[in-house]
């Protein structure tokens, strides 16, 4: 719809209405407060007009019109409530109701079945038509066979049995999905679920099967939902108007009159979906999507069905102190003590057996626990100096928690040894962005992909790791954005791409340099932009000159012609956007990889406008915020350098203490320093390096060697087994605070439930600890922390709780009347000119050889989050993805005699794990992939702790392993 078109004036029920051309009658009527009933129409999606319940009279028209679908015309005279409309509606409702159980599951719950409500409103009670449920009940999976005389399908004594293993039992219910219940009887075939799955999530699982009275919805080729390609996002449930698709209760049976709604933000990934928690009996009992800037009410399986971890019985509720008999410290559980073997974990058993761990601790009071922490930290500081202390904060915690955390480490511990897991995900991306542009965040929001002609996605398994962001990319690809996916391991997003390019792992620099080579050779670069807004172009030109497509083909395995084709696509695009994930960043060449992406973008001037730019998809729900808060060893909040005397002075004055000018150590450096005895005391807030960091055998030694370790968490993590003191913290559901998503939106989340037992807010415990160490912090609530932080942090200066309570705002937001900034760098870069930082191809640290012939890649699966502490205690998620696996391609599997599901021992120079094989073509020959969430077979036992020289990010995506079949 172009805004230039003049408005259209029409009359609805006697009222004159002027609306934009192209609008439907239904929308126009709503403008003037006239509600026309709808069933198949859902304002979130394009109308299809299949139910005809929205019938209205249009003067001069012989038949009734479907208001949801019919567009307005100038001079139209519409009547929405005549007897004729009413009669037509009543007939539709009566027909639908004949087949519909009363009440259906949805109406029974909270009287919200749209059909039954409409029936009540229209006074339709007993339909005159016979019930057809008996037939639908016997239809499942049997459509299309020859029909018997009365129309029901026959199962004839036939030659071969049909491939019936997958056919449903003859029941109108399909309860095979762990999270969704299907009742075909309640279905009114409005197609809303089909459209939600196809258009909103672009998963394309649901269709119709059969016709006439035998028609019903079907999953894939008509198999039980739980055995289909459904990814359990629940979008279909969210849009189903009746009880045909409903959420299965995961925690308690819902009692609507007792449910309370609290608006918050999803606790999992960096997409930052807005959600509503429905709370009952002090527990989160259901989650629904809310219309936020990043999700438009969509959610993924974790956000919608992964909420029950917060009420898990294994939550920590009292502080714990290690018993003297359990020194010297070491691992306590089987899984943490030994090499990994998935067979150690029995499916269905709790993910961690607390027995052997809890034995080593005694319960205590907060006073005793915090006094002990304060005393030990002070003692280490006195004896070895502040540099012997360090802290890991958490990208799962709020901005307020993390601001207080780094303040504690800097102002009270007296060191800059503070870091968090962003070191492990996008440190290299941030380093390159800082170096080349002067700002480490994304330039454009994800949803901008809709305005791009070309979209490159590299090293990102977006549909699993940023599922809701992926929906926007998939939608764009459908609507005309050319999608190019480049990744050694074929991600599901490639199914939606116009081009999928598989290249050899670790050869990103060569590939990207060759793309730039072609762009320059064919004059597809943007000389005006380069001249006005960049520097160091000559150096780039010189470097990429050597990377001809033919040379890159030899390194990357990508045909030169493909490289040329992709270069032309990107080079010729009007607007092109780049997304990348950890496939780019988690390499020893991670910073170089990102430098090349930035150069590619600068070279073509694809930045500073909507539909362009650079978007490293951030992992954790608050990884952007945690970095913004200064949970990094070289900067205070807002990326203000600790080495800058003016900045230091500002913070010293605000905090009332002198501050340490020395840059701190990063995550993996801290582990090494602990092994050397340079770091002796640590505070760990919500981090679990035992599973998340590379080369766990080394981490194990480092953790055991710490003189004092305090762990503040919501469950007994693997890391907590090495703790002297464990402090029970509050989960996301119990927190009020702000989170900053991958798009830089700062979003306010509200406390939904009370923390269990004596568990406390993270920031409160930190404030208390600071006090006991002789430093007073005083905050009445989270808003006060935010205000202090905002005053010190330029990008957040204009933000406040009252503003954020109204709407999420993307930083930079320098002033209270500033609307925030969606697209960065329209006129300049924070560092002035954009810098080209050319990079040369360098091989990975540990190349495969005869002894260790495979390349190991690690990463995540859709259902689990990071070290699994939360998701493996979320019933549905654990049920869907209970086991680790190693992906191997069919040819390699055959050569090794490995069958799908066979136990395989994977060994590297650092450790070994035993996992079942998953034979798949997703993975290239010579490579294998293991997800890192599983404590019983931790992939990071294998990974190498080699670091990128600039960003100190470990090479999680590449090390050499060997595989053995077990009998």
């Amino acid at each position, binding site marked *: 719809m172009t805004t230039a078109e003049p408005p259209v004036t029409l009359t609805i029920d006697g009222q004159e209405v002027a609306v934009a051309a192209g609008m439907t009658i239904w929308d126009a009527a709503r403008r003037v407060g006239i509600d026309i009933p709808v069933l198949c129409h859902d304002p979130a999606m394009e109308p299809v007009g299949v139910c005809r319940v929205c019938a209205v009279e249009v003067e001069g028209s012989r038949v009734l019109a479907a208001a949801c679908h019919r567009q307005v015309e100038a001079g139209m005279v519409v009547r929405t409530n005549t007897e004729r409309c009413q009669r037509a509606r009543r007939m539709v409702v009566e027909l639908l109701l004949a087949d519909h159980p009363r009440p259906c599951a949805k109406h029974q719950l909270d009287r919200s079945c749209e059909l039954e409500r409409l029936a009540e409103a229209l006074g339709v009670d007993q339909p005159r038509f016979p019930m057809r449920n008996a037939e639908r009940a016997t239809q499942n999976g*049997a*459509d*299309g*066979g*020859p*029909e*018997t*005389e009365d129309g029901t*399908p*026959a*199962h*004839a*004594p*036939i*030659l*071969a049995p*049909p*491939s019936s293993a*997958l056919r449903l039992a003859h029941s109108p219910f399909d309860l095979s999905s762990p999270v969704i219940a299907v009742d075909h009887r309640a279905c009114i075939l409005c197609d809303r679920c089909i459209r939600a799955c196809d258009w909103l999530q672009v998963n*394309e*699982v*649901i*269709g*119709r*099967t*059969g*016709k006439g009275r035998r028609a019903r919805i*079907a*999953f*894939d*080729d*008509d198999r039980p939902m739980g055995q289909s*390609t459904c990814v359990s996002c629940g979008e279909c449930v969210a849009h189903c108007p009746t009880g045909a698709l409903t959420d299965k209760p995961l925690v308690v049976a819902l009692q609507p009159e007792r449910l309370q709604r609290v608006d918050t933000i999803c606790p999992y990934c960096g997409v930052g979906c807005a959600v509503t928690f429905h709370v009952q009996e002090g527990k989160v009992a259901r989650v629904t999507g809310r219309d936020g800037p990043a999700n438009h009410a969509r959610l993924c399986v974790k956000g919608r069905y992964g909420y029950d971890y917060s009420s898990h019985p294994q939550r920590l509720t009292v502080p714990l102190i290690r018993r003297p008999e359990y020194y010297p410290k070491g691992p306590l559980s089987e899984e943490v003590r030994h090499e990994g073997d998935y067979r150690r974990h029995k499916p269905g058993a709790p993910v961690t057996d607390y027995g052997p761990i809890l034995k080593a601790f005694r319960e205590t009071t907060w006073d005793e626990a915090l006094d002990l922490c304060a005393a030990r930290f002070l003692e280490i500081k006195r004896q070895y100096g502040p540099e012997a202390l360090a802290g890991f904060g958490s990208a799962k915690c709020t901005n307020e928690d993390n601001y207080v955390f780094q303040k504690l480490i800097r102002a009270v511990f007296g060191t800059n040894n503070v870091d968090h897991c962003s070191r492990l995900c996008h440190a290299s991306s941030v380093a390159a962005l800082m170096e080349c542009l002067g700002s480490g965040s994304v330039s454009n929001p994800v949803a901008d992909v809709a305005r791009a002609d070309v979209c490159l996605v590299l090293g990102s398994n977006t549909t699993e790791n940023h599922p809701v962001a992926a929906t926007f990319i998939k939608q764009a690809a459908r609507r005309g954005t050319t999608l190019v996916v480049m990744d050694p391991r074929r991600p599901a997003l490639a199914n939606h791409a116009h081009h999928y390019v598989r290249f050899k792992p670790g050869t990103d620099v060569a590939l990207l340099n060759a793309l730039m080579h072609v762009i320059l050779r064919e004059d597809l670069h943007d000389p005006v932009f380069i001249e006005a807004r960049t520097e160091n172009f000559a150096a780039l030109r010189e470097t990429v000159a050597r990377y001809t497509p033919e040379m890159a083909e030899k390194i990357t395995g990508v045909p030169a012609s493909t490289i040329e084709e992709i270069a032309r696509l990107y080079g010729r695009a009007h607007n092109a956007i780049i997304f990348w994930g950890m496939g780019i960043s988690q390499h020893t060449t991670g910073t170089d990889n990102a430098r090349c992406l930035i150069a590619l973008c600068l070279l073509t001037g694809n930045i500073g406008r909507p539909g362009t730019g650079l978007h490293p998809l951030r992992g954790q729900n608050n990884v952007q915020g945690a970095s913004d808060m200064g949970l990094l060893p070289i900067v205070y909040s807002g990326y203000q350098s600790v080495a800058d005397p003016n900045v230091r002075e500002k913070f010293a004055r605000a905090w009332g203490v002198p501050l340490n000018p020395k840059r701190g150590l990063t995550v993996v450096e801290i582990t090494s320093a602990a092994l050397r005895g340079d770091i002796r005391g640590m505070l760990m807030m919500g981090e679990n390096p035992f599973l998340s960091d590379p080369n766990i055998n080394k981490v194990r030694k480092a953790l055991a060697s710490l003189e004092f370790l305090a762990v503040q968490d919501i469950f007994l993590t693997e890391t907590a087994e090495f703790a002297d003191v464990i402090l029970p913290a509050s989960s996301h559901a119990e927190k009020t605070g702000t989170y900053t998503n991958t798009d830089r939106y700062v979003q306010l989340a509200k406390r939904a439930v009370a923390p269990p037992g004596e568990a406390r807010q993270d920031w409160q415990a930190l404030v208390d600890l600071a006090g006991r160490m002789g430093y007073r912090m005083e905050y009445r609530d989270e808003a006060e922390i935010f205000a202090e932080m905002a005053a010190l942090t330029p990008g957040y200066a204009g933000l406040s709780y009252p503003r954020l309570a109204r709407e999420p705002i993307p930083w930079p937001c320098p002033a209270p009347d500033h609307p925030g900034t969606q697209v960065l760098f329209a006129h300049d870069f924070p560092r002035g000119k954009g810098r080209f930082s050319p990079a040369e191809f360098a091989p990975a640290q540990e190349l495969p050889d005869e002894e260790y012939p495979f390349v190991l890649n690690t990463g995540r699966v859709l259902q689990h989050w990071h070290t699994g502490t939360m998701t493996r205690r979320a019933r549905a998620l654990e049920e869907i993805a209970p086991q680790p696996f190693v992906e191997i391609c069919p040819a390699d599997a055959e050569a090794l005699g490995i069958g799908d599901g066979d136990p395989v021992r994977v060994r590297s120079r650092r450790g070994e794990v035993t996992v079942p094989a998953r034979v798949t073509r997703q993975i290239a020959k010579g490579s294998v992939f293991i997800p890192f969430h599983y404590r019983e077979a931790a992939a990071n036992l294998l990974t190498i702790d080699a670091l990128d020289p600039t960003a100190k990010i470990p090479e999680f995506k590449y090390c050499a392993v060997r595989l053995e079949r077990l009998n």
Partner: protein
Amino acid sequence: MLSEKAFAAIEAAKKRYPDPRSALMPALWIAQEECGGWLPREAMADVARVMSLEPADVQSVASFYSMYYKAPVGKFVLEICHNIACDVLGARRIIDHVRERLGIAPGETTGDGLFTLKTVECLAACGGGPCMQVNSRYYENLTPERVDAILDGLRAHAEAGAPPPLPDERPQPADDGDAA
């Protein structure tokens, strides 16, 4: 599951349409022919793959049209019209006769796998009612005797390789001149 030949035929069919996905129906037909007259799940998966369609799309089309079979059928599918014109001309008698003769009800297949009986709506051959379609052939102006002859002929065709029975031996009704 499908042969190279079938895949090639589907690829050729795709080329005949401006939007290749329009070839879904011929593709399903090719697959059904190849699989002995019905569409096993695996064959539909193959079709989805070569057509670049989701399994759900293929399922909805295949289940909508009654001439795609999702369960095995006999070598000959006897589709007898029971719509109004044929009914008036005695279709019921024909159906009952076949039922008795073969011992199967509509929807069923004979134990030897030779015949499946099916009742269908108008075959658009009302002028020759009662009528039936057997695989791709029409037989019109049916009488019980003629049906017997046709069934015998079909059996001989299947067992001894005899030529299939001819569509019609009786003179066609006179042309009333409308058709031009």
